């Protein structure tokens, strides 16, 4: 029934889609790691990135031009959000933090819906072509997205582990007071973490828009996937999130081959539950 | 004094390549105070963690009152009668001092009135009675340590493990603490005390065990240990009280 080539094809497609999940999850992991805040609105920043790409597309530019633009714009939006919304609740109990980012979700998602309308948009890029490799088909925009995502992931990894600012970011995540005593401007670190985190999500949104329909509510499912991926990859491990994203992508496409596709998300969720049972720290995680 | 309340036999605990506790055996007799000292990183806290069930040792056994408790979960160990304090204090922050103690006391006296009464008594003993209605998050470090002791006592343990409770105290405060612990010991509670403050260990311990690099290097009366050249070399050095 299911041929080998189908499976290989599914794995490749899973990796391509998964690489976008990975980006979204990495941003989430960064924010979560540094600030100990779960950003429920994460996928909605991604959606905003998509709309920026769409706007440039309407202006006659290639949506990929939006990668730096969206990153910049959403980075600044993220910094503003951090200062106005996140910072005031940082010391508050978990539940008010979640309430605050959930409020952000409602405001961004439905604000966008009110502003742009709930309609679906589609971007048509000139390179929307398919490569055929002996029965395996690869959609070029997805391939480009994959390359971009690797590039962004690598940059982020080097930034976090090889630069003093990166290490300072990690330090802040573990002990705010001690970080201050080492001359680290904690507020700036939070700005950076939140800005970069949602900025990366926005990049994912841009890449996604080159091959996936764009609509204001699209972020919800991606946020949910990002949660799963961060747990799967392991807390505080940006690298883990990247791999986690690919795994979930592959799990979804491959399981769609073998079971009824409407249950493929269940497989992803079950993997998540199994993961927390056998290894609550995730694949590459350090911290519970 | 001959009943062995705790028997540690050949316990080994490794972290990766590091052997934090290396074939340690020791006995604790009912009613005594056993000092456990050694340089930083010698494995003292790790040994406590093994005894209280937070870590499972790779090798060896721990017996409490003759019963094998190796690898039991922490709450069961606590139920059996072993209480401990943490080197890094962990009070229940939004609870008042009294409430913190009552949580422990309820284990043995399910009736709230009794538990409160007992807790107040314990707070008096550790000198926190005045602060009973204060949120425990706002105590000073030293007070938090006393609270740790109080909470442990509330469990009515037979064996009490103290991890550096005298740290940060001035000599006078150390003496007060020693008096307090001696009083507790007199009530029949056996203790193991990990401590770097010699004023406390030397005054209180009946016997002392010395760990170094995870191994037991000496055991004896405070006097014997203090004069042991190996202990002086590795641990005491010269010049400190």
């Amino acid at each position, binding site marked *: *029934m*299911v*041929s080998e080539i*189908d499976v290989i*094809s*599914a794995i490749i*497609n*899973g990796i391509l*889609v998964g690489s976008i999940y990975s980006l979204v999850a990495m941003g989430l992991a960064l924010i979560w790691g540094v600030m100990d805040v779960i950003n429920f609105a994460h996928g909605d920043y991604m959606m905003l990135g998509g709309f920026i790409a769409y706007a440039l597309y309407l202006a006659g530019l290639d949506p990929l031009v939006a990668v730096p633009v969206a990153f910049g714009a959403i980075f600044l939006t993220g910094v503003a959000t951090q200062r106005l919304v996140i910072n005031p609740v940082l010391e508050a109990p978990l539940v008010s933090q979640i309430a605050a980012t959930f409020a952000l979700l409602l405001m961004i998602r439905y604000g966008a819906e009110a502003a742009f*309308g*709930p*309609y*679906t*948009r*589609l971007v*048509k890029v000139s390179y929307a072509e*398919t490569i*055929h490799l002996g029965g395996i*088909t690869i*959609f070029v925009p997805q391939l480009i997205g994959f390359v971009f995502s690797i590039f962004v992931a690598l940059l982020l990894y080097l930034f976090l582990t090889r630069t003093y600012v990166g290490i300072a970011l990690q330090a802040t995540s573990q002990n705010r007071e001690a970080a201050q005593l080492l001359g680290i401007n904690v507020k700036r670190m939070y700005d950076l973490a939140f800005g970069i985190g949602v900025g990366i999500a926005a990049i994912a949104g841009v890449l996604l828009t080159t*091959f*996936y*329909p764009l*609509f204001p*509510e*699209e972020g919800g*499912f*991606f946020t*949910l*996937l990002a949660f799963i991926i961060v747990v799967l990859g392991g807390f505080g491990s940006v690298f883990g999130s990247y791999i986690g994203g690919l795994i979930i992508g592959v799990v*979804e*496409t*491959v399981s*769609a*081959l073998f079971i*009824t*596709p*409407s*249950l*493929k*998300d269940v497989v992803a969720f079950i993997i998540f539950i199994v993961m927390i049972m056998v290894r609550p720290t995730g694949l590459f995680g350090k911290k519970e | 004094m001959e009943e062995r309340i705790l028997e540690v036999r050949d316990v080994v605990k490794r972290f990766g390549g590091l052997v934090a506790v290396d074939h340690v055996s020791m006995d604790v007799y009912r009613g005594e105070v056993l000092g456990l000292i050694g340089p930083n990183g010698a494995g003292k806290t790790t040994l406590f963690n093994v005894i209280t069930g937070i870590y499972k040792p790779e090798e060896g056994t721990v017996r409490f009152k003759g019963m094998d408790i190796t690898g039991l979960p922490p709450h069961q160990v606590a139920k059996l009668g072993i209480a401990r304090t943490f080197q890094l204090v962990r009070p229940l922050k939004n609870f008042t001092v009294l409430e913190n103690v009552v949580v422990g006391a309820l284990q043995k006296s399910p009736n709230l009135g009794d538990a409160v009464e007992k807790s107040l008594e314990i707070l008096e003993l550790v000198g926190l009675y005045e602060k009973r209605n204060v949120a425990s998050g706002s105590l000073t470090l030293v007070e938090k340590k006393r609270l740790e002791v109080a909470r442990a006592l509330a469990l009515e343990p037979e064996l009490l493990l103290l991890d550096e409770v005298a740290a940060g105290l001035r000599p006078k405060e150390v003496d007060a603490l020693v008096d307090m612990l001696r009083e507790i010991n007199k009530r029949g509670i056996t203790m193991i005390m990990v401590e770097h403050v010699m004023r406390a260990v030397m005054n209180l311990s009946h016997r002392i065990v010395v760990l170094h690099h995870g191994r037991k290097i000496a055991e004896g009366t405070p006097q014997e240990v203090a004069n042991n050249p190996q202990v002086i070399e590795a641990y005491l050095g010269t010049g400190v009280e």
Partner: protein
Amino acid sequence: LLRQRGGGEVTEIKVGVILPLSGKLAETGADLRDGIEFAVDQINSQGGVKACGGVPITVVWGDSAGKPETGASEAERLITQEKVVALVGAYQSAVTKTASEVAERYHVPFVNPDSTSPALTQRGYKWFFRVTPHDAMFAAQQVEFVNWLNQKFGNQIKTVAIIHEDSEWGSKVAEAWQQAFTQAGYQVVKVVKYHAATVTSLDSEVAALKAANPDLLLVAAYVQDAILLVRTMKAQNFAPKAVLAQDAGFITPSYKEQVGADGWYIFSREVFNWDLLEKISRLKEVNDAYKAKYGKDLNGNSARDYTGMWVLYYALEEACKKAKPSDLDAFRSALRDALANLNIPGDKLIMPWRGVKFDANGQNTLGQGIVVQMMEDGKYYTVYPEEFATKEPVFPMPPWTERGG
């Protein structure tokens, strides 16, 4: 509330309308509302309900927010507080289920112009009347259409595959298809079901369909997944001889605008299409007036709700002959009987139907759908039934590699 004028006469006839005016389907809800509003305007300007002395119809709106529980509570409010003579609505089958249940209990007629789940008219309700055809009827008609294609183009379609989203709508449509096509002797080689709310890729789904190599692909999809499906089919170069969709995603303005050349030659079942203007004389007139007022053409949703309101009007005229609106219970009951006995010929409607006549379950038996196909100007044209067709169908669908665009 039937406002009393002096000695027990009424000044208006109140009708409750429940629609998804907020929530996910608010966009559709707005269309539906315009259709109803426009029908009521027309009815009132031509003299209201004449048999009741020319009183106008007033609509009291209820917003279901797309939720069954809100639909039910709105139904109760409209019935007991607003004292409407009948209810119209409620688009989503789940909402229609709970709202019509309330109506049934209170003995209030419920006219449903727009829900297509077959189950709605299998409940044995006495007060429920569905004007639109349902999915099983559509499925039967789609089999007829495929038979007709086979006749015309030489029996090219033998195997069928189905892909559908997994909500009530998609699942029930697929069920009906499977039954109808199997019964008609076609071989259903693959059924793929996906979850629309979370679908980010249809790669594996399309691969599975392609592996089954069907002659005809039947699709029930919402808009995002419809676009994604077409894209993925193109990417994987999967081109069955024909693709026949069940309206929904495939007929939304977003889809038509965005999908472009990739959507050419795809068939969709519809209830209504712009080119019917040329075939249905009444329609052109109505549509012109509607466009003048709302700045847009009628579509399948607004046209059906428009029609539903007119159907209710015809029944009201009959009911007024039997009972007085001031006696609410008697009037509702008379209205129910009038609906049950209604027989409206097709030429009085703007829909491509043979008429309106309800069976014992309250289902209109004279309704039907049409089949449209997107041609190279990006517009849909009616290709079936022949009496409404404006173009010949293009069949088989040319492979992806042989198209411009």
